C-alpha cells in the first residue's frame, strides 16, 4: 500500500511537472475514447427514439408516392406530402372494420411550429393529456404541445397567428388568429412540438372553409341576378381573419367535407387480422398506399447504421493511431527519463517499483482521459437530445 502511495505521488509529480504534455496526452486519449463511444451511443439513441414513435403508429395511409415523406409528415410532422387524400377515407376505413382511423392534416404552421389538423381520437391514441386549460372545442381553437408552449410562452387564452402559406399566392388564404385553449403535458415525442386543432380549423387555414361579409346585390359581380340565384362576390369582399363568437356561424365550405384534403390517415387496427387485411387491401390500390412506419423507419435507420459502421471503423482507426501515438510518447518519455529510471535502480529500487510508478502514470492519464471522454459523451448526448427534440421532437 505504501509502495502504491509513493508510486502515485511520484507519478503525479511527474505528470504535473509538464502540464502541457500531460494535457495533450489526456486530450488525445480522451478523443480516441469519446469518438467511437459517442457515435455508438448517439446512433443507438436516435434509433430508439425514432423506432419508439414508429412502434406506436401501426399503419399510415396516404397517397401513392414517397413513403418516407409520408412517414416523416405523419409521425414527425416534418415536410409535406405531395398529394393529399380525401378526408372521407378515414370514415371508409372505420366503416370497413379496420379500426380507428385518425385523419392527419399537416400542412400549416404557426410561428414555424406545425398546426396538426386531426380529431380528438389522435390525442387519445397518443395518450396526450392536457396539462392546463382544455381541449379545442370549436373552430379556431388549438391546443399547444408542451415544447411549443414553452418556446412561445403560451398559456390557455393566448392567441397565435398561423403562418402565411405562400407569400406570392394572391389567391391564397390569409393568416388566421388561433386561440390557444390548453397546453398538453410533455410526452417526449414530436407531439410536444406542434399545435393540434380540429381538422376543420386547418381547412380554415387553407381557405377551403371560410367566412366573409355578406355579399349584397350592390357589391356583387352579377347585381342583375334573379332571386334565388347565387350572387358572385368580388375580391374586395372582406374575408374573416379571426374566428370569433360572432362570425363563427358564418364559416362555411362549398362542397362536401368528405372530399376535403388530409395528408394521411393513421390507422390503429384492433387486431393482427385487421392489420394484415388492411395492408393487403391497399397493397395494390391505385391511388392510396398503406405503409408500416416501423418498416420505413428501419429502412431509414439502415442507412444510418451503415454510416455508423463506417464512422466506427474510421474512429477505431483514429483510436488505434492515438494508441500508437500514446505508446510512442510513453517510450520516448521513458527514453528521456532513462537516467532517472537508472538512478532509481542504482540506489536500490526494484524493477517492480519502477514499473508500478510508470503504470500509475499511464493509469492516471487513462483515468483522466476516461473521465473527460465520459463527461464529453454525457454532454454530447444531452446536446443530441436537445437537437432531437428540436428536429423531430423526440429524445
Amino acid at each position, binding site marked *: 500500500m*505504501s*509502495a502504491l502511495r*509513493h508510486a502515485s*505521488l*511520484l507519478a503525479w*509529480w*511527474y505528470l*504535473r*511537472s*509538464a502540464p502541457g504534455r500531460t494535457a495533450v496526452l489526456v486530450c488525445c486519449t480522451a478523443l480516441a475514447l469519446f469518438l467511437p463511444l459517442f457515435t455508438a451511443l448517439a446512433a443507438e439513441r436516435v434509433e430508439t427514439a425514432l423506432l419508439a414513435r414508429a412502434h406506436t403508429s401501426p399503419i399510415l395511409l396516404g397517397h401513392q408516392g414517397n413513403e418516407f415523406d409520408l412517414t416523416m409528415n405523419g409521425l414527425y410532422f416534418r415536410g409535406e406530402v405531395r398529394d393529399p387524400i380525401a378526408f372521407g377515407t378515414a370514415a371508409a376505413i372505420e366503416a370497413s372494420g379496420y379500426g380507428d382511423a385518425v385523419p392527419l392534416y399537416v400542412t400549416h404552421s404557426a410561428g414555424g411550429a406545425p398546426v396538426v389538423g386531426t380529431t380528438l381520437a389522435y390525442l387519445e391514441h397518443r395518450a396526450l393529456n392536457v396539462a392546463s386549460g382544455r381541449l379545442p372545442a370549436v373552430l379556431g381553437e388549438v391546443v399547444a404541445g408542451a415544447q411549443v408552449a414553452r418556446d412561445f410562452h403560451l398559456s390557455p387564452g393566448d392567441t397565435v397567428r398561423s403562418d402565411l402559406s405562400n407569400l406570392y399566392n394572391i389567391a391564397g388564404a390569409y393568416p388566421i388568429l388561433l386561440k390557444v385553449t390548453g397546453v398538453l403535458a410533455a410526452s417526449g415525442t414530436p407531439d410536444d412540438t406542434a399545435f393540434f386543432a380540429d381538422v376543420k380549423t386547418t381547412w380554415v387555414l387553407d381557405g377551403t372553409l371560410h367566412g366573409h361579409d355578406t355579399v349584397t346585390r350592390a357589391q356583387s359581380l352579377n347585381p342583375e341576378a334573379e332571386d334565388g340565384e347565387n350572387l358572385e362576390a368580388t375580391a374586395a369582399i372582406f374575408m374573416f381573419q379571426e374566428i370569433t363568437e360572432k362570425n363563427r356561424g358564418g364559416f362555411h365550405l362549398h362542397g362536401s367535407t368528405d372530399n376535403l384534403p388530409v395528408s394521411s390517415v393513421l390507422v390503429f387496427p384492433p387486431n393482427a387480422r385487421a392489420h394484415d387485411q388492411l395492408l393487403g387491401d391497399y397493397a395494390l390500390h391505385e391511388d392510396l398506399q398503406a405503409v408500416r412506419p416501423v418498416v420505413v423507419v428501419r429502412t431509414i435507420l439502415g442507412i444510418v447504421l451503415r454510416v455508423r459502421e463506417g464512422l466506427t471503423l474510421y474512429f477505431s482507426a483514429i483510436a488505434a493511431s492515438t494508441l500508437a501515438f500514446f505508446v510512442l510518447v510513453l517510450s520516448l518519455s521513458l527514453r528521456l527519463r532513462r*537516467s*532517472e529510471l*537508472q*538512478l*532509481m*535502480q*542504482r*540506489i*536500490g*529500487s*526494484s524493477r517492480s*517499483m519502477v514499473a508500478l510508478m510508470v503504470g500509475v502514470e499511464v493509469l492516471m492519464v487513462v483515468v483522466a482521459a476516461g473521465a473527460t471522454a465520459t463527461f464529453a459523451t454525457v454532454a454530447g448526448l444531452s446536446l443530441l437530445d436537445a437537437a432531437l427534440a428540436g428536429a423531430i421532437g423526440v429524445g
Partner: protein
Amino acid sequence: MTTPAIVAHDLHFAYPTRTHDTPFALHLPVWEVPRGGRVALYGPSGCGKSTLLNLIAGVLPLARGSLEVAGRQLRNLSDAERRAHRIRSLGFVFQDYPLVDHLSAFENVLFPFRLNPALRLDAPARTRASTLLHDLGLGDKGGRRPSALSQGERQRVAIARALVTRPAIVLADEPTAGLDPARSTAVLTLLEQLCEERGVTLLLVSHDPAVLARFEHTLEVGALSSTDEAGP
C-alpha cells in the same frame, strides 16, 4: 576491534562476452576498508573503478570470491536482499545520475524513501533531510527544482540524498568531475566533513590528482593484483 566496512577476498568478476576476445576482468585478492575510513579509487578509464563500485553496491554479481559490505556477505544475498541492503546501507553520489528533474531539491533528498517502503518516511527522516540541506548551505533552496540550482548546488543535493538514509558507506563516483576547482574543493570538503561527523565510510572514484591528494588511502584499480597495493 571493529568489523571493517568492506572486506574482499579473492574477488573475481568478468563481463560476459560473445566473442573470443579476452573479456574485461577484475581480480581483487585481499582488500579491507575500515569503518569510517576514506579511500580514493583511481586508475585509467576502463580499468574497472565503476565496476568495483557496482560490485560493492551489489548491482553486479560476483563471479568468484567473497565480498562483505557493511556486515553482509553479498554472495549469500538474493537480488531483492541485495537491493534492500543497498538502499539501507549505502549512499550514492553519481556524476551521471545527478537528480530527478521534476522533483524539488527537498523531495530529491527524500527520493530513496519513496523507492523502498522498508525505509520509513517519517518526521525524523524529513527533519534529517532539512538539516542536511541546511548543513550543505541549501536551507532556503529546498523547494527549488534542479533546473533552478547551480551545478555545485545540485551535487550538494545529491550528497544530502546519499546521507539521508544514514548509510554505513557512501560510494561517490567522480562527484566533482563537472565542477571548477573552487566548487570541487567546497563540495568535497562538505562530503568529507559530513561523512566524518556521521562515521560514514567514504569510497570515492576520481581522476583528479588534487582530489586524490586529499586522501590518505588510495587504490589504483588498474593494478589490482597484490595485497600490498590493495588496501589502506
